[in-house]
């Protein structure tokens, strides 16, 4: 395990930011931590980086105590808010970070060039940061987080300041980092983003980790199909509810849960035989948003 947390708790007065959190992330995974605002996501990441001291519990990164200099050497971090030294040039900022991460001098230029290329900022590195757009600043902060090629990268809302193209670029970057063997720990509000990039997810609510595991486990159980239907009588709806097939019915849009694709023609036939007129059928895989909302409402 590249990251292992055991019984991490942290309170701010009466507010429990993290409560007895146990978590482990394997090497090479892209872990997405999901939760509503104030759930404790950022606090947990900050504990892993030694920016916040836990009240109890401990975390290890690559076998080193989280927060120690040796552990931080193995991590990259893009904070949610990423104010930079605006009076520096992008190149100076990356050089400064490379030195903080003790990148050998002879490798410094190569490491900076590689990081700039990865975030798509090459050509602008000699400009002052104060002249960068918000998106460019986020890219630069991201470059600073990976300039030393860390095995574990924490990204706290990495696309919050980016336009759709920038978001796609970050997704590509996450994929490239994963391909290069890095492990990524992603905090994001954007569920679709997590869905597209993460291999593992954890759901945090009021400081407690309420669910954690392979993202496929959360997405797998059944497919949803959406049908445009007219003439649906209440008895059929009741029957579908009893058979645990009904997800929702609103404005002629009937959403049913099926365990196997073979059930789809059977259900359509059933509806038609009972007097319903089916205009369209669309398959929908179960979305992370549904899982998220269900877990948060429980």
């Amino acid at each position, binding site marked *: 395990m590249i990251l292992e947390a055991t019984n991490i708790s942290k309170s701010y007065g009466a507010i429990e930011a993290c409560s007895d959190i146990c978590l482990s992330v394997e090497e090479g995974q892209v872990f997405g931590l999901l939760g509503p605002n104030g759930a404790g996501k950022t606090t947990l990441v*900050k504990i892993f*980086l*030694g*920016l*916040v*001291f836990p009240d109890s519990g401990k975390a290890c990164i690559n076998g080193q105590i989280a927060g120690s*200099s*040796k552990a*931080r*050497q193995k*991590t990259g*971090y893009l*904070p949610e*808010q*990423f*104010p*930079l*030294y605006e*009076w*520096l040039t992008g190149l100076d900022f990356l050089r*400064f*970070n490379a030195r*903080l*991460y*003790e990148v050998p001098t002879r490798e410094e230029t190569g490491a900076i060039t590689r990081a700039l290329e990865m975030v798509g900022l090459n050509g602008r590195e000699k400009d002052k940061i104060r002249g960068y757009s918000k998106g460019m600043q986020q890219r630069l902060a991201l470059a*600073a987080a990976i300039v030393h090629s860390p095995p574990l990268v924490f990204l706290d809302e990495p696309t919050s300041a980016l336009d759709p193209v920038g978001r796609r670029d970050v997704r590509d970057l996450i994929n490239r980092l994963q391909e290069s063997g890095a492990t990524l720990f992603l905090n994001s509000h954007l569920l679709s983003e997590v869905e597209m990039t993460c291999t593992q997810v954890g759901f945090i609510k009021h400081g407690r980790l309420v669910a954690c595991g392979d993202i496929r486990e959360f997405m797998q159980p059944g497919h949803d199909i959406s049908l445009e239907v007219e003439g649906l009588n209440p008895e059929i709806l009741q029957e579908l509810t009893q058979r645990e097939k009904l997800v929702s019915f609103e404005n002629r849009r009937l959403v049913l849960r099926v365990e196997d694709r073979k059930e789809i023609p059977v259900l359509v036939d059933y509806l038609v035989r009972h007097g319903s007129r089916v205009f369209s059928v669309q398959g929908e895989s179960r979305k992370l948003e549904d899982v998220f909302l269900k877990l948060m409402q429980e």
Partner: protein
Amino acid sequence: MVLTFKEMINKRVVLLGILLTVLFVVFYGIGLHFVLQAPELKKGTSTFLAQQAGFQMLTLGLFCCMFLVGAMAVLVGSGSISREVETGTILNLVSRPLSRPAIVAGKYLASAALSMVYSVMLFGSVEALAIYLFHLKINPTSIICGLLFFSLLPLTILSLTTYCSTVLSTLAAGVIGFMLLVLAIIGGFIEQFGAFIHSSAMVNVGVVTSLLLPTDAVYRLAINQLLSSVPSASIQLGLTPFGVVSLPSAGMIVYILFYIIIFLVLAIRGFSRRDF
């Protein structure tokens, strides 16, 4: 440390401070020039009077320097850590493999080095002007010793404001720094006047303010180092509030060194235990 150097050089307020300091030196020089134009001094009838006027103007200038250096040290030190915390740029440092004591020490050393250069240049300029224009005869060793003592001034203020900066906001740290600086100056006046009229209560008031921020003690020690070896200046030392009647004890020198170290240790401790 290098980053702190660059940051200061890039700060407009620091550059503005340096510009105003240059203006101060220029005006001080013009002031000295006009003092020398006074009929009593111009005739050259009284070398003694000219020397006394020179020493008087020198202590006045050095006292102003003490305030300027103090203000600059408050300005630099009060935001050294807290400004980065307030803007969030501190995350660029504390999330990297750099120990927190190293961050505080780096900030302090960079601020101290720049403030000492500023201090030595300012005090040196004022001394040079007064010595040159009034033909004051001061032993070079005394000048160097005086400058060394003067350079303790920013170190003292910086250690206090750096500590405040690790646990308070920039504004609060700045207010505390300025208030204590002014308090130390007023306390210094009371102490000197108390010594002149032999009032131990007034001297004690000065000692207490020096315990809170020993900048006045540093200033008196520096002035004493600079002028005590000059026989014609010794009479001047006790005649103005800028001279030395009550000389800080050897214990106070030790206290100043401890003051610097203790506040630095507290700053490191405060910063190392803080959540970000």
